[in-house]
């Protein structure tokens, strides 16, 4: 039985099990399940935002609260049906998240989570101080949900609505993660440079994700308001936000199923403690808080991967994402390609490029031109400023002075992302892959800018055609570097030389005009180097312009049309490889004075 079928059977079993809950258990247990469902909605959003994308939020209970209060206020003040309150609650919450996110999501490191504490604390304080929201006593007598004349007053009747929503949101998240935007989301953690190098906007990705997770929280808030029929500031406090965080960590942070497991375990344990502790102590409530905090700290010490990871360490399925057998599929129309400029046209020009890091001049007044269809090598001893030069050309670093032009446009002040979108693709000296993602996903990241489907279309699974085209492109590039059959391996399991090849495939998936390779042959064996040289020659024939930094002289000399030699940040030499070999200055730079 394949893992896919067993997964489907598992989901089916869970759904069937849930469906009979209201028939088997009493009201109390059913309302416990309702609490679990509502918490799971919040935690699903947190898994995407904090677990997968690494944006830690200590304030999501505030979003639950904003939605709960919004709908409660509308239905008590104007006697409007909760069903109309839903879009209102979602809208208000999404808008709040958009404003908060736009203000704070550019913060780096630990500043961002600290800012979430600020609003996680402020929002419930606001609830408690606004007269229209009933101050600390809250809003009561909120209308229950109703279907026609049937009012969903009991826990049993709300159960199906809650869990259908949980199912829909979980499916949405699943589709989202296995999509073009989902790959970008999974790549967010680890920083901006990689994302910008294939034209994704990290801020945009984080903001959309933030709003999305707030909307999931808002669903929970709306459900809470109309099933509980009373709202007050307490259930939306910082403390509760930490509880959601706890559920996420218990569930393993990165897995959607973990959101369900985490919510279930935490709420169930809480409930058991509530029953047991009064038997041993009169300070049950206090002990419960202490016990929970202690458990959380122990979890951080011993099982940061969550309880599921402990349980499934042996049974872990290797393949991260199930994909269909591709050879059985009908052929797909390839992604549209850019038209490459004619051979010999000026493509890139660098004029007097200078980069200063405080006192150190890493690149000093370097100028050169690259024509379309050329392969140019950039060589020089360690510390000559080659990689800095690449970073300046690609916009990864900003020039201190000088000017760069690409395809006739001034790109001196353009962002790394804009330059990438114009058709400059690169690899990195220090390999930047997402080790836990598959080879296929890593390469597909390169084709990011060639697709259009956003998070919503991905979540509703309306992007299958585009996904197939992106996957086909990624497979084509993987085949080119000779890694067929290893598409589903985690990229981190590959040897370093192979990881460099995967970076090349990723750059190729972007359909580049100019391909910039930083030490592509380092760590490759002889035969692999030969294969790489063949690949690069073929690419040149296809009209792709290539710039390459490499230490293997043999490799470079045989391959390139022209060499630029740098030393101590300045250009030492420019010309064909034979002339470089003969040049005294170049020899001196490499071998010292005696040569």
């Amino acid at each position: 039985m394949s893992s896919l079928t067993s997964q489907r059977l598992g989901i089916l079993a869970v759904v069937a099990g849930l469906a009979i809950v209201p028939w088997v258990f009493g009201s109390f247990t059913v309302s416990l399940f309702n609490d679990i469902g509502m918490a799971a909605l919040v935690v699903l959003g947190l898994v995407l935002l904090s677990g997968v994308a690494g944006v830690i939020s200590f304030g999501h209970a505030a979003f639950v609260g904003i939605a709960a209060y919004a709908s409660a206020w509308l239905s008590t003040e104007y006697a409007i049906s909760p069903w109309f309150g839903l879009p209102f609650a979602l809208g208000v919450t999404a808008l709040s998240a958009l404003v908060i996110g736009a203000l704070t999501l550019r913060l780096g490191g630990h500043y961002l989570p600290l800012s979430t504490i600020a609003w996680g604390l402020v929002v419930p304080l606001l609830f408690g101080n606004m007269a229209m929201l009933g101050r600390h006593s809250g809003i009561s007598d909120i209308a229950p949900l109703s279907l026609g004349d049937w009012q969903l007053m009991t826990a049993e009747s709300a159960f199906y609505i809650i869990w259908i929503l949980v199912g829909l949101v979980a499916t949405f998240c699943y589709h989202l993660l296995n999509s073009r935007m989902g790959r970008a989301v999974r790549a967010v953690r680890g920083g901006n440079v990689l994302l910008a190098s294939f034209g994704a906007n990290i801020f945009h990705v984080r903001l959309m994700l933030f709003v999305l997770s707030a909307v999931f929280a808002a669903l929970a808030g709306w459900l809470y308001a109309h099933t509980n029929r009373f709202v007050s500031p307490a259930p939306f406090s910082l403390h509760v936000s930490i509880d959601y965080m706890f559920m996420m960590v218990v569930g393993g942070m990165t897995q959607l199923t973990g959101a369900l497991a985490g919510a279930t375990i935490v709420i169930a344990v809480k409930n058991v403690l509530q029953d047991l502790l009064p038997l041993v102590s009169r300070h049950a409530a206090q002990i419960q808080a202490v016990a929970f905090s202690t458990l959380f700290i122990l979890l951080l010490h011993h099982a940061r991967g969550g309880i599921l990871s402990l349980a499934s360490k042996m049974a872990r399925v290797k393949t991260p994402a199930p994909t269909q057998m591709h050879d059985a599929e009908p052929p797909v129309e390839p992604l549209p390609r850019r038209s490459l400029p004619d051979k010999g046209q000026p493509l890139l020009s660098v004029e007097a490029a200078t980069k200063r890091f405080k006192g150190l001049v890493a690149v000093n007044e370097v100028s050169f031109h690259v024509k379309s269809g050329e392969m140019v090598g950039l060589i020089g001893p360690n510390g000559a400023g080659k990689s800095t030069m690449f970073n300046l050309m690609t916009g990864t670093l900003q020039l201190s002075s000088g000017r760069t032009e690409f395809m006739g446009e001034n790109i001196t002040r353009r962002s790394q992302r804009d330059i990438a979108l114009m058709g400059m693709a690169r690899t990195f000296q220090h390999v930047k892959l997402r080790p836990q993602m598959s080879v296929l996903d890593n390469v597909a990241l390169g084709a990011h800018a060639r697709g259009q489907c956003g998070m919503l279309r991905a979540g509703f699974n309306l992007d299958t055609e585009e996904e197939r085209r992106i996957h086909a492109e990624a497979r084509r590039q993987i085949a080119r570097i000779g890694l067929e059959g290893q598409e589903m391996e985690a990229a981190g399991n590959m040897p370093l030389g192979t990881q460099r090849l995967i970076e090349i495939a990723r750059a190729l998936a972007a359909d580049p005009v100019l391909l910039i390779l930083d030490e592509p042959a380092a760590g490759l064996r002889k035969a692999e180097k030969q294969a790489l040289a063949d690949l690069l020659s073929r690419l040149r024939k296809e009209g792709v312009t290539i710039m390459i930094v490499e230490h293997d002289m043999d490799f470079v000399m045989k391959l390139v049309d022209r060499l630029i030699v740098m030393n101590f940040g300045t250009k030492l030499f420019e010309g064909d490889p034979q002339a470089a070999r003969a040049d005294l200055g170049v020899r001196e730079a490499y071998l010292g004075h005696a040569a």
Partner: protein
Amino acid sequence: MTWDIALILSVDGLAGAAIYLLAGLGLVLVFSVTRVIFVPFGDIAVFSALTLAYLEAQRFPPTIGLVAVLAGLTVAKEVVTLIRRGQFRELPRAVLGWGILPMVPCLPAFLLAGRELPALVAIGLALILVVPIVPLLARLVFHPISHASTLVLLIAALVLHFLLSGLGLLFFGPEGFRTQPFLNGMVELLPGFRVSLQVLLMVGTSLALAALFFLAFERTLVGKALRATAVNRVGAQLVGIRPATTATLTYTVVSLLAGFVGILIAPSTTMYYDSGLIIGLKAFVAAIIGGLSSYPLTALGAIAVGMLESFASFWNGAMKDVIVFSLLIPALLVRSHFSNHSDDGSDEEEV
């Protein structure tokens, strides 16, 4: 608003600033040496305030029990770790250092509690009783994950706050306390403008402690070791500074600072077991204005927070916390703008 009111509010603001200055310095110290964003600072301050209140009421301070429990847990954990590693020779040292030493301050408190004490003695007892708490907690909670990412440490710190407020409720009970002011009376600074001696004492103590703090850092070898660890952990390790030792030292200093904060704040504010978070977070706003690294800027931040709070409470008492915390967002934005944008890699933290 008249000038008189503005002046009175400014004095209140300075009193607040004195508190946030001490707390802010402590937070910056912990973060720079250990990378822990020490959210539960305020909880420790609450413990010292409540301890003082118990001593004043001639009741037996539950802090002794708290320290004993923490010391017991720490010793147990250390002993188990050492036995597992087979380092039996280290056992007496661990028991002495983590079990007996923290209990030393409990002895005078144990003997003296329950009778009427001179104010200074009570304050002294409250201070020394609180000192072992943070080092013990840190050994239990942060030491095992001292290599984890800042974010994991932050989560742990936040959870520790909830743990401590739970313990506070368990040990000190739900009622609030306000302690006796040390000095009564007012002094006329300007014609027609009088300031209470208590406020002057707060500001004076805070400044004196801050100066002491500064001197200790600049002039003593231990202070230099702490600074070295803050600047470069690995480098400090290479020249023979043990991170675990500097961490424990840092936490001891912070415990003492928190103790002072609690003592200073207790006569003017009623303290409950859960008052700590708000105090700690306001000090955070000050520390973040200082970028969690600069002591002078943190002092400026403390003044800003104190003033804002005081004027905000005049404008709308209920919303003053909202206003102060809202300052955090612009402070963070300014900070983030000026800090170097090397977000690549620094975000690469496995939680």
